[in-house]
């Protein structure tokens, strides 16, 4: 029996039969592809999906180019490639609009009615070309199935040829591909990358064709700014049917993570229900973080009737509605803050309370989960705005188990443009005595999740900034060892008794919060000159005993605060000795002081031992 359907090529067994899928022969020939034949205003997106769906994942396969036989076709893989790359290279920007905004009027309303899930809609604008009414030229839009599609009108202005020149001539082209490969790798790690799956969205297939074997560059954390978000279809691990997720797209921006991290040294201040400002020590807002849907706030303010009701009903779409977005100018000249504001300071709420926790709650609603933990952000960081992602995911060069630190005044004073500020220090509980000395340590005994930090140096190789806090602490311990320093009677300061009782280190109060240890100016000053260094070198035998003494401490259970405090002293003492010796050899013999003369209390159970040289004791006696 003959099947009564166009394109039938097999006989039916019965007079009724099932057709489970679209027949391939029903697809118009390339020369007959016709966007306006799709029965939806979203016809351009449908056509882009259609075109991308024709791509082959076979390595080396010649990809179809329907545009070569159909000059009316505005949606092509080549244009898709150009816009993806342009977005990654900041040649194209992504702007999310709410179709229910009054400005979108009945056309926006119609689009929303047809696809309510696409209410928050991504517009792609060229970063250079001017468009209508002082805006940048609108060149495309986002879509869950194909990721993006192209404006059917810009070809007349020779836009695509010009964009191709810009993209293919870009020196950053390979880095952009690597960044996209990084982004793809996140999906792979989460079991959400299946470009060959029969239900796979076409954007995934197209990105696979674009990237091929390009390897990740490992820079997604450090050198990418996330834009969006957009809704994207994925086939979840073990699933058959596509589902949609809200994801952010990567834009290459070297050093962005470092710049963002510095924002955590500015105090978060809630300005109104919808925003939190990060302010510098002079009270100037550096950036504003959006904490509520922008248009909902506008709707309420303007007193719209039906629109305001729609705009307010964004539960589950918070991220799409702009929550978590950074606004303002992060490059504004400002005074750098000293305190790290991730955590609360005494009675003053920090970033976690004012920003992170509300954003995690908003993200949970947007991602339709009960809660989102830090582990979720670590696992799938592209699902979260930079205001969550970069605050919670460790930098690529951070030590495993590193602890976030407050910066001291000395570090703050030495921050240099373009050099990432130190964010985390080695946990002395996890540091193994005898291994390499850390350059930055978290002082044990701190209260809260952010520790006081001691920084010997920071910044990348070639641009390292010398601070000297660890060797200055070691110098202070050296002076005590010599008998030239003593602990003040209240135990709060170590005084250089041999030099006008100058203060070497001690406890300080910053923003009404006590820090258990800060190396003070006199000690730092001493280790930035050659006098004390030469003097130490002149007492080589004592220096041997000093080093031997400290090299014998710090073993034991790293969980114990006392052990951590001892390790702090050991790291400081060894750092000082290395500095003093400046590469000169020194023997590992001589007497070792086994018992601390007294202790400097860092915190509960964390006591920094203070050793006195046996000869110093006898000299004194």
């Amino acid at each position, binding site marked *: 029996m003959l099947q009564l359907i*166009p394109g039938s090529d097999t006989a039916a067994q019965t007079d009724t039969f099932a057709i489970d899928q679209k027949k391939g022969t029903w697809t118009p020939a390339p020369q007959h592809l016709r966007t306006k034949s799709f029965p939806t205003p979203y016809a351009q997106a449908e056509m882009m999906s259609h075109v991308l769906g024709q791509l082959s994942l076979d390595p080396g396969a010649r990809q179809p180019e329907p545009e070569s036989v159909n000059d009316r076709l505005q949606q092509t893989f080549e244009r898709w490639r150009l816009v993806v790359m342009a977005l990654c290279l900041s040649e194209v920007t992504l702007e999310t609009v709410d179709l229910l905004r009054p400005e979108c009027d009945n056309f926006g309303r119609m689009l929303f009615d047809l696809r309510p899930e696409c209410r928050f809609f991504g517009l792609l604008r060229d970063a250079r070309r001017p468009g209508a009414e002082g805006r940048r030229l609108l060149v495309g839009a986002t879509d869950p199935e194909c990721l993006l599609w192209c404006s059917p009108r810009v070809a007349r202005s020779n836009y695509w040829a010009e964009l191709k020149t810009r993209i293919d001539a870009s020196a950053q082209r390979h880095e952009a591909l690597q960044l996209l490969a990084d982004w793809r790798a996140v999906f792979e790690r989460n079991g959400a990358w299946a470009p060959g799956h029969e239900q796979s969205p076409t954007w995934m297939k197209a990105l696979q064709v674009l990237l091929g074997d390009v390897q990740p560059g490992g820079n997604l954390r450090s050198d990418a700014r996330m834009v969006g978000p957009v809704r994207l279809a994925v086939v979840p691990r073990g699933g058959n049917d596509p589902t949609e997720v809200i994801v952010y797209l990567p834009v290459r921006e070297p050093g962005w993570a470092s710049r963002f991290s510095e924002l955590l040294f500015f105090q978060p201040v809630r300005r109104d229900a919808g925003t939190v400002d990060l302010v510098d020590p002079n009270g100037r807002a550096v950036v504003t973080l959006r904490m509520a849907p922008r248009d909902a706030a506008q709707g309420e303010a303007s007193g719209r009737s039906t629109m305001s009701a729609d705009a307010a009903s964004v539960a589950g779409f918070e991220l799409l509605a702009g929550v978590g977005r950074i606004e303002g100018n992060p490059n504004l000249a400002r005074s750098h803050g000293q305190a790290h504001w991730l955590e609360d300071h005494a009675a003053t709420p920090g970033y976690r309370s004012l920003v992170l926790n509300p954003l995690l709650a908003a993200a949970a609603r947007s991602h339709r989960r009960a809660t989102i933990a830090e582990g979720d952000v670590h696992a799938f960081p592209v699902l979260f705005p930079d205001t969550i992602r970069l605050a919670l995911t460790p930098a690529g060069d951070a030590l495993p188990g590193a602890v976030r630190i407050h910066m001291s005044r000395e570090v703050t004073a030495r921050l240099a443009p373009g050099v990432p500020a130190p964010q985390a220090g080695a946990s002395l509980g996890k540091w193994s005595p005898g291994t390499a000395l850390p350059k930055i340590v978290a002082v044990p005994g701190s209260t809260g999740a952010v520790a006081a930090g001691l920084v010997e140096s920071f910044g990348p190789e070639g641009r390292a900034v010398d601070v000297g806090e660890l060797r200055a602490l070691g110098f202070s311990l050296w002076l005590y060892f010599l008998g030239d320093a003593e602990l003040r009677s209240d135990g709060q300061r170590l005084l250089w008794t041999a030099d006008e009782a100058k203060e070497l280190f001690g406890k300080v109060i910053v923003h009404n919060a006590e820090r258990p240890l800060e190396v003070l100016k006199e000690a730092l000053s001493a280790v930035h000159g050659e006098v004390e260094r030469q003097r130490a070198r002149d007492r080589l035998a004592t220096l041997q005993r000093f080093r031997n003494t400290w090299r014998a401490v710090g073993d034991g259970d790293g969980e114990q605060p006392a052990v951590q405090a001892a390790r702090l002293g050991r790291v400081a003492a060894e750092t000082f000795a290395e500095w003093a010796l400046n590469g000169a050899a020194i023997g590992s013999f001589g007497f070792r002081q086994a018992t601390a003369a007294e202790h400097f209390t860092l915190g509960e159970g964390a006591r920094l031992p203070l050793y006195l040289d046996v000869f110093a004791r006898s000299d004194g006696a």
Partner: protein
Amino acid sequence: MDLVIAVGGGGQHIALAVARLLRVHALAEPVTAFVIDADGESRLASKLKSFGNTVSAGAPHPLDGAQAIVPPFARDTMKETAFRKIFIDDRADPLERELFELFYDEESGGIEGAVGPAGGVDIGKGMFANPSVGSAVFSASKGGAMEPLFGIARTAARIFVVGSFLGGTGAGITHQLIKLVREAVGVAKPIYGAFLLRWFDLPPTTGQTVDTATLLASMGHGLEYFFKHTKLLLDASLLLGVPDNPLPQVKATAAAPDNDETVSLYPLLAAYGLVMLPEKTDTQARAAHRTYGLAHDEHDPAWPLRRAWNVHTTSKDPSLGARMVEALLVQEIYRSLREKSSDFTDFGYEKGRSTWGSLLGNVARANHENPTVFARKVLNALLNRGAQLWFTTAWLGTIFGEPDLSMFGDPRTRQLYSVVKQRRWAPPEAFRVLVDAFQHEGTAGAERTRTSANKDPDPDVATAEKIERSLLAALRT
């Protein structure tokens, strides 16, 4: 009540098929139609609305609701028919203008300030095979013209959406319409779809904007959209169109000129979806819902005649062939009554006065009419009804090529069909059946009909319908 939502020209063809099949009781009543098309005055539309010019007081339309065709949008009251200006007026925000021009190219959406073709599609002049425009206009104005549909849909037991994926209007709005109807009625109510793919050939003189390639593009992209989005909203669906290597019986026919009806097997088969799709669907198992096709058997081209259609008649044979042969015989009887009209109106046939003469006389007297005059009115109503039966059987005859119906129907039907086939039919045969039918007068009518569903039909109309029901009962012995 079942609701048939017929969209566009394809939908009207299927609605016509449904109406015809209802007229011969091949489909079970009650069925109501809601017909949507931008052009309500075409020859096809007129044929549907008037049921081939047979609708009269004595012969109501067999498909309730088909007398009106609702435009998908209030085109007549629109201030602007230029597609662009429906959305972008002089006060439009630049963002809305940008959005519009992002979605629609210059050909569809026009250029700011331009007039004529450069201004884009003018829907006042048609959709120009542009489903993407049609879908937008429909969606933007659904709150007006379509509002009555949703109320009807909520009260329907089952809903059938019928149409085609060709052209502009139907292809443009069908998918959005199904989405809206599903939203209106909820997930539990069964909605089925029967859609025509390419089933006719355009004559070479058709206008510039629509050609075969255009139709095939609409079909291909419409199907792509259907399988991706719309299919999931339906409990089951049926797709029909001309195969690539058709046999003569199923090849595409030339589209009728001037938007008239194109007679073809395909709308009939699409109407069969009203029977087949619910049979095949377990509405409790949505995951198993499927899309179906039908086949043509070159060894048995009349298989649709043998299939069971309406199983709710008093006949032991539920096939379409049985209904067709009954309709042919009833027409034969009516022709004989007309030929011997004085015998009918004076009740001058054997046992005439003691049977129908008595009944008609009583009704006439109750209505203060002369029995003979009243009988003439009844005869006219019967002849009008016969015209409707002809409108159906002629169509079936064209589709199936005057098939031999000897094997269909109940014994009395077969016997009488044999008489007709042997050209031995004479008016006395008709009166014999008429008298025999009188014994069913009190019981016939279990099958509800359009007229009986009407409140207070005129006495002659009610009587004519009673006679026809009784005749059918006699034929089913």
